[in-house]
């Protein structure tokens, strides 16, 4: 399958390994990955902080770029069949916020009336990594080996906006050599919440402290998740407290130990 990668702004700028591992994994599974170079960001930070008017051109830009990627090559597009992002949160924004923002801004006379429908069309073919693998490509055993003790944090947006359910866990259970340990109170938010982590830093930190305590009880070498943002938060806390547990994006585990050799 020909698949467009939406790297997400955070992975692109700060956590390239999550996006690189996604490419390596999909290519190993025999798929062709394209990277529409005009892409930037889904605009979620703006929307969730109340800046919908500022988010609008970012949303429009995202729709333009991936609409073109999804257009058949005969019509000048990239001819991809699906868009994938290594982030439940960014896909959640594409799927649940883009059309909402477009409609609200259209009501204010700031957006084209057609933008919401175009956003929905792009969203309908945009998938979070575990969704793409399990639902679209029909694989759970991606042939990876990762001989480590790992615990999985289901990020809020993958869990409750996308309803990925146990897809990431099914993928992890099929990884050879991986010792999967259940995370206590796994479904509790880590406290990131975008600008919430700064605007309400004390509450955010209190939530993080409980998450880190839960991670520590698992005695895992690695805590994984499908979102670089939540991992940045959990990792920032682990690092500050000098807890040895590493944060590793789900894509990097599914790419298999030593995947960097393919870079």
């Amino acid at each position, binding site marked *: 399958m020909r698949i467009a990668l939406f*790297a997400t702004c955070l*992975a*692109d*700028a*700060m*956590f*390239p*390994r999550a*996006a*690189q591992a996604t490419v390596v994994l999909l290519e190993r599974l025999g798929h062709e990955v*394209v*990277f*529409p*170079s*005009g892409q*930037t*960001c889904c*605009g979620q*930070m*703006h*929307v*969730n*902080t*109340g*800046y*919908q*008017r*500022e988010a609008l*051109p970012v949303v*429009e*830009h995202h729709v333009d770029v991936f609409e073109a990627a999804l257009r058949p090559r005969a019509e000048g597009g990239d001819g991809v069949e699906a868009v994938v992002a290594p982030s439940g949160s960014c896909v959640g924004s594409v799927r*649940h916020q883009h059309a*909402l923002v477009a409609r*609200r801004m259209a009501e204010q006379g700031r957006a084209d009336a057609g933008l919401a429908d175009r956003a929905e069309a792009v969203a309908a073919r945009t998938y979070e990594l575990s969704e793409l693998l399990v639902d679209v490509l029909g694989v759970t055993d991606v042939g990876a080996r990762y001989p480590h003790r790992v615990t999985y944090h289901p990020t*809020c*947006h993958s*869990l*409750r*906006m996308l309803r990925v359910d146990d897809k990431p866990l099914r993928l992890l259970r099929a990884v050879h050599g991986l010792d999967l340990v259940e995370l206590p109170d796994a*479904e509790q*938010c880590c406290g990131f*919440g975008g600008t*919430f*982590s*700064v*605007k*309400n*830093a*004390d*509450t*955010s*930190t*209190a*939530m993080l402290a409980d998450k880190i305590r839960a991670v520590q009880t698992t005695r895992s070498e690695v805590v994984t998740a499908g979102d670089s943002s939540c991992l940045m*938060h959990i990792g*920032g*806390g682990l*690092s*500050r407290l000098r807890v040895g547990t590493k944060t590793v994006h789900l894509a990097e585990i599914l790419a298999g130990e030593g995947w960097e050799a393919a*870079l």
Partner: protein
Amino acid sequence: MTTFLGMPGLPVATERGTLRGADTFPVAARKALADTQLRKNLGHATSTIRAKRARVVGELDDWEELRAAGAAIKADVMARLPELLVQLEENVTARGGHVHWARDADEANRIVLDLVRAAGTPDDPVTSVVKVKSMATQEIGLNEALAEAGIAAVETDLAELIVQLSDDTPSHILVPAIHRNRAEIRQIFLDHMPDVDPGLTDEPRVLAMAARAYLRRTFLAARVAVSGANFAIAETGTLAVVESEGNGRMCLTLPQTLVTVMGIEKLLPTWRDLEVFLQLLPRSSTGERMNPYTSMWTGAPKTSGGTSGGTADGAPDGPQEFHLVLLDNGRTATLADEAGRQALHCIRCSACLNVCPVYERTGGHAYGSVYPGPIGAVLTPQLAGMHGHGADAPAGGDPVDTLPYASSLCGACFDACPVRIDIPSMLVHLRAKHVETAQAQRRVPGLPASAENAAMSAAAWVMRDAGRFSLAEKGLQLGRVLARDGRIRSLPPPLSAWTTSRDAPAPPPETFRQWWARTRGDRS
């Protein structure tokens, strides 16, 4: 008032200090988080109730269908609110009750006060009333209004009694004293309950017995009761109060006069609709299949004269002076916002509080409103109005304005809500409303854009163009000089709020975009 957000012309709630706290949420939360006993109490109580709720909700394989029905019924109520209210009024009146309408808190308080006074005689005035726990009367500050007129309002719900005795304020919709543990409650009783047994232990059963003994004489002698209502059925004029202890039954049954204060949104169209809500509410609130007692009455109730199910009127049963006060107090302003009106669907079960990771850590007082937690964060700003950054905003910012931001948008509240109120989406909507009003106010000459606004505008300008974005990434890479061992331990404000407790990652030597261009650049 004019700069408040909301539909022009529809007034928000009267300012009585019950919806707008003294501190902004971040400031109040910081104080609450420092109280380790509070965090322990809240963690214990919320995890207990979460487990109970999950168990009884799991028993019903049609829970999602019940939620869908509940949401649809409430949406229908809002669409036909004027007609349903008039129908309710007709049916209550036909069965001997009286209906009053109150535009705001002050008007509601005046009505109740007049009714309490009218229940006494010059020789024998009514000096106290018994109260069933009610959010509506908390919201309008009724107890304080009655006290100013020399009338004592005695709270009879155990948790409300604990709050009242300790001169505290409620911190939870269902369990107002959730922030107190058994040892603290024992001490409150010892300090404030007249004639209490000095040998009182902190066993919950013993504490409950002390409350029973303390209130018993008061109940048996009460002449006037004030209640709220969980539901009112337009089709029949029936009111319902859902409770556990029997204090509700005492208040609704024994006094001669009953005054019920109810928000205009609490209606259900038909008797049959109770089949949905009597299943949704108890399982969501106390995590029980059914709460111990639910009382229903219509007007000035009569027993049935015939055999069971008979229709002839028999003897009086319960208060024969019944007054229903229908309260607006910002509800119509809330109704005016199509994206926000769902907040009026709330049935006050408090399931969203119990699952909220923010509420669990800060408790209810941090919200500064009688409606705390996720539902409070969407209801309070709409009932009370937000200030934006207007000239009349309180110094340091309006506490109410900070409520829509008091959430990590984790979405647990939506999943728990028995009537499917999409609280996360409403939080995002209210944040936008807040920012847009603030921007409009800033357009007044001489007022610069806020620093946050400037940063957001700049970021948006960068992020709508890949060329600018990749340049910005290169700038970010300069941040590597701040890092040691791949992490950054300190950043300037506002990002210092992050690095106070968390390390920041060092930017990578190569961005994904750069890597792609280097390795696969020919491909697209």
